[in-house]
């Protein structure tokens, strides 16, 4: 092995093990920031020793042991400090300076520790941005630089975000534990939101982007899969995994070589990844088997599954999709969900049936600048043969979209509508 090979191997092992090491340490020292520092120290030792000693047979155990020694040193120093303070007449809690039983603490409950780490990284006391950065850093094993590149943000900004997040957690005395009972649902939804956000950030990246951005898709999926293994009894976790697997299955089919987006119904289904579809449907089945009321992710996954199950767009079960969107709208009322439901209604029962639903959204402030509203309306008008009215809708949609390719496409539809509204001129 050359020096760079060794270096790369060490970095790889670190990326694979850091979350577990940090999780185990956090449980002992009760502070994520300190745990990460101690874990980093262990990495530094590895970088110093492994190139000459070789990579140990069980590198994870080695890293954990090294971090443990650092932690013990830390506690000893504090204990000595305590004693000095006590000699000086300070009254200090001895608890803080005592050395816990590391071996017992580290070997038990690796799963629980990992889960606690996910919950603490996604704690509602932190801003969404901070949760995302901290989760990628602590659980995804990404460096600050990688996170910055993926989110198109300057590196110091991310570094600062992470430092502040750790400080906030420490100041708020957030306990390191898996929330139970009434608290669990809210805390879990915060975790799922972060994972889905990471995935979507990657999914919305375009072909020309730095590869770190699309890679976020895999990071999100991986976090979701890890979460599903850690919390197999939570239907919404499987629902989110199912949703991400099925969405990811379309990655190769959803843009033209020039980057132009291809709408779901126009996609070449031969390019959908059947392995991911299979995994997504299996995850959805797991969620359904657990029973209970269907949550937002299970419902969205069910909708995605309706498309994934059929080989030809014409075979889509639109009535089923309309019903699912109805259920989703009741659970999380949102104009975007309503708009999607309207599209499904138009497919199931025709444009005339969908028109009132779309018109009802016209005054919706949240959709004021949402290009898909006039785009959908234009589409329905074309289907109803009202080309003259369709043109301004497509033009408006074109003026609202930020995607240049999509704008071209919409302007083309506007021109097409003009031609068709004046058939004598063409």
């Amino acid at each position, binding site marked *: 092995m050359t020096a760079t090979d060794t270096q790369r*191997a060490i970095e790889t092992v670190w990326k694979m093990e850091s979350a577990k090491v940090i999780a185990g340490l956090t449980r002992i020292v009760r502070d994520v920031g300190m745990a990460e520092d101690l874990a980093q120290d262990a990495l530094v030792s590895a970088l110093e020793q492994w190139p000459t000693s070789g990579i140990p047979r069980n590198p994870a155990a080695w890293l954990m042991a090294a971090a443990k020694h650092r932690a013990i040193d830390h506690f000893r120093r504090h204990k000595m400090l305590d004693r000095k303070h006590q000699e000086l007449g300070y009254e200090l809690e001895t608890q803080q300076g005592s050395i816990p039983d590391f071996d017992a603490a580290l070997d038990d409950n690796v*799963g629980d520790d990992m889960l606690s780490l996910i919950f603490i990284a996604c704690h509602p006391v932190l801003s969404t941005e901070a949760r995302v950065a901290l989760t990628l850093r602590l659980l995804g094993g990404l460096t600050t630089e990688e996170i910055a590149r993926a989110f198109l943000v300057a590196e110091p900004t991310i570094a600062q975000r992470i430092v502040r997040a750790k400080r906030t957690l420490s100041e708020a005395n957030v306990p390191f534990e898996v929330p139970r009972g009434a608290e669990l649902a809210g805390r879990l939804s915060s975790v799922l939101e972060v994972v889905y956000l990471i995935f979507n950030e990657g999914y919305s990246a375009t072909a020309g982007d730095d*590869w770190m951005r699309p*890679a976020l898709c895999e990071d999100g999926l*991986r976090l*979701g899969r890890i979460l599903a293994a850690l919390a197999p009894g939570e239907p919404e976790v499987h629902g989110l995994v199912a949703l991400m697997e099925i969405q990811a299955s379309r990655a190769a089919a959803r843009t033209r*070589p*020039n980057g132009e987006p291809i709408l779901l119904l126009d996609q070449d289904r*031969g390019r959908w990844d059947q*392995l991911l579809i299979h995994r997504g449907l299996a995850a959805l089945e797991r969620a359904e088997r657990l029973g209970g009321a269907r949550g937002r992710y299970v419902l969205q996954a069910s909708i995605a599954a309706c498309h994934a199950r059929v080989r030809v767009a014409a075979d889509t079960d639109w009535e089923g999709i309309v019903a699912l969107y109805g259920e989703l709208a009741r659970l999380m009322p949102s104009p975007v969900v309503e708009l999607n439901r309207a599209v499904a209604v138009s497919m199931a029962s025709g444009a005339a049936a969908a028109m009132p639903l779309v018109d009802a959204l016209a005054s919706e402030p949240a959709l004021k600048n949402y290009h898909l509203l006039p785009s959908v309306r234009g589409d329905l008008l074309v289907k109803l043969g009202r080309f003259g009215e369709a043109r301004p809708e497509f033009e408006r949609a074109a003026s609202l979209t930020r995607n240049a390719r999509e704008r071209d496409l919409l302007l083309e539809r506007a021109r097409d509508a003009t031609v068709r509204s004046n058939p004598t001129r063409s």
Partner: protein
Amino acid sequence: MRFVVMVKATKDSEAGKMPSTKLLEEMGKFNEELVKAGIMLAGEGLHPSSKGVRVRFNGDTRTVIDGPFAETKELVAGFWIWQVKSREEAIEWVKRCPNPHESEGEIEIRQVFEADDFGPALTPELREAEQRLRSKIDTKS
């Protein structure tokens, strides 16, 4: 990125000898680790090549050849599909795999091609042509 990780055959696996309970247990644990790490997409074990068939191509002729096949060490006895961040990560995971055979054997790691791997040689025009071709094939089938 994805890798196909192939466990190569041995005399024992080719003879249809089943793995010991101990090995099955260890493999089960290893598979569990892969799932927990969120990297395992699929994994299967294969019957010995005595149940396998090859179709040999030579120009326009196709010849069907029944197993077993001789070159044991080159045969595949089982495989996984993993999604990992790097080739190094795949190597690290393979190093942690229990020895799949009681004797000497090999595990081979091969990266799965993705469109971007073709690099600049696959120009947008070529990609489009490929896509057109694919959709033609799909409508025919």
